[in-house]
């Protein structure tokens, strides 16, 4: 599973990566998490508020740090 976290490097974006990393460790899912900081690429996903989460090419979340429950549900 390929996860991308979209955000220009603000505190919320780092928190989002942390939540996803911990959720992945909990569920034992094999994932790769990359941070996308390039504005053109972020905009290319049509995201208007960061942080955004993209899983396997699909935007699943924007605008806030996801909760643990949300992250767990995406990784199932």
């Amino acid at each position, binding site marked *: 599973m390929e996860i991308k976290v979209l*955000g*220009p490097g*603000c505190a*919320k974006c780092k928190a989002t990566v942390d939540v996803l990393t911990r959720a992945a460790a*909990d569920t034992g899912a094999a994932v790769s998490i990359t941070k996308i900081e390039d*504005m*053109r690429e*972020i*905009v290319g*996903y*049509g*995201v*208007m*508020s*960061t942080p955004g989460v993209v899983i396997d090419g699909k*935007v*699943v*979340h*924007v*605008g*806030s740090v996801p909760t*643990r*429950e949300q992250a*767990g549900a995406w990784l199932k």
Partner: protein
Amino acid sequence: MTMQAQEMQKAPTPAWLWSAGVAAFVAVWWLVYGQLIPASEWVVAQLPVDRASHTGDALAFFFYDVPKVMMLLTLIVFAMGVVRSFFSPEKTRALLSGKREGVGNVLSASLGILTPFCSCSAVPLFIGFVSAGVPLGVTFSFLIAAPMVNEVALVLLVGLVGWQVAATYLVFGLSIAIVAGFVIGKLNLEGWLQPWVRDIHAGASAPSDIESARLTWVARYKLGLEAVREIFGRVWMWIILGIGLGALIHGYVPQDLMVRIMGAEAWWSVPVAVAMGIPMYTNAAGVIPIVEALLGKGAALGTVLAFMMAVIALSLPEMIILRQVLTLKLIAVFIGVVGGGILAVGFLFNFLF
């Protein structure tokens, strides 16, 4: 941790319990808020200072204002967090796209207050708007209003200066956002966007909406709490510093000094205040306690409002972020038009009052 998460999934707190909790909190809040003056006097009485001295005065000011502002902020930021959960940049964009200038500027500035916005997403938001056919001037109205007219600024003004000044700030902040956006739109500066933004604009590749799940009330309350946590983490130190500095000005700066430097007689004080305010970067929380103290010492309302608007609305970090999408020429126009509006408000107030 995992067990906790499982327990939470098994028995989620029902919505009525959340609502009851919120109601109980507001009731307790109300009771405590009424006791702040006696409490602050009691604290100062415990200290080895003369209540009637400058120091006693400054301390009383500090111990009353800090809890008052913190309490007001908690309540209002929570309420706004819940209200904002009904808005999103995507919905706002849908409302604004295809709107004519004029009506669009008014709607856009108003939505700027209600839509969740963080200056770190200014760029994606800007592109999202422009690429979906929201006119440039209408987009600017949003970008000016969103940081300038916000609940933190309004709460602090109500709490420290009075609701009349807060209402004035709201009305004129919105007016500047509307007029400045309208003017920028009339100048037809689309060509002054950065080239890569222009390409997206011309291609009109409006990104599709992300289906947002309908939020439950519990989720909205949680967003309110999250807003309180986030804003407090950002501003608590500024509030204490600002009120501390305000208390010093309150207790020690002589009255006639401020009247001379920042009084209505000194016409040049407005441009100086704006010029000083633009490069300064602090949020509303840091600047408004100082504003209150300056007003109390005889500084003119127009000068102080102009200073405050310049500090909040025009900041260097935001310009640097916007540099990615705007050319320097367009940033200069942006600063010029907004700065001009702020100057006009400052002069108007000093003239009228």
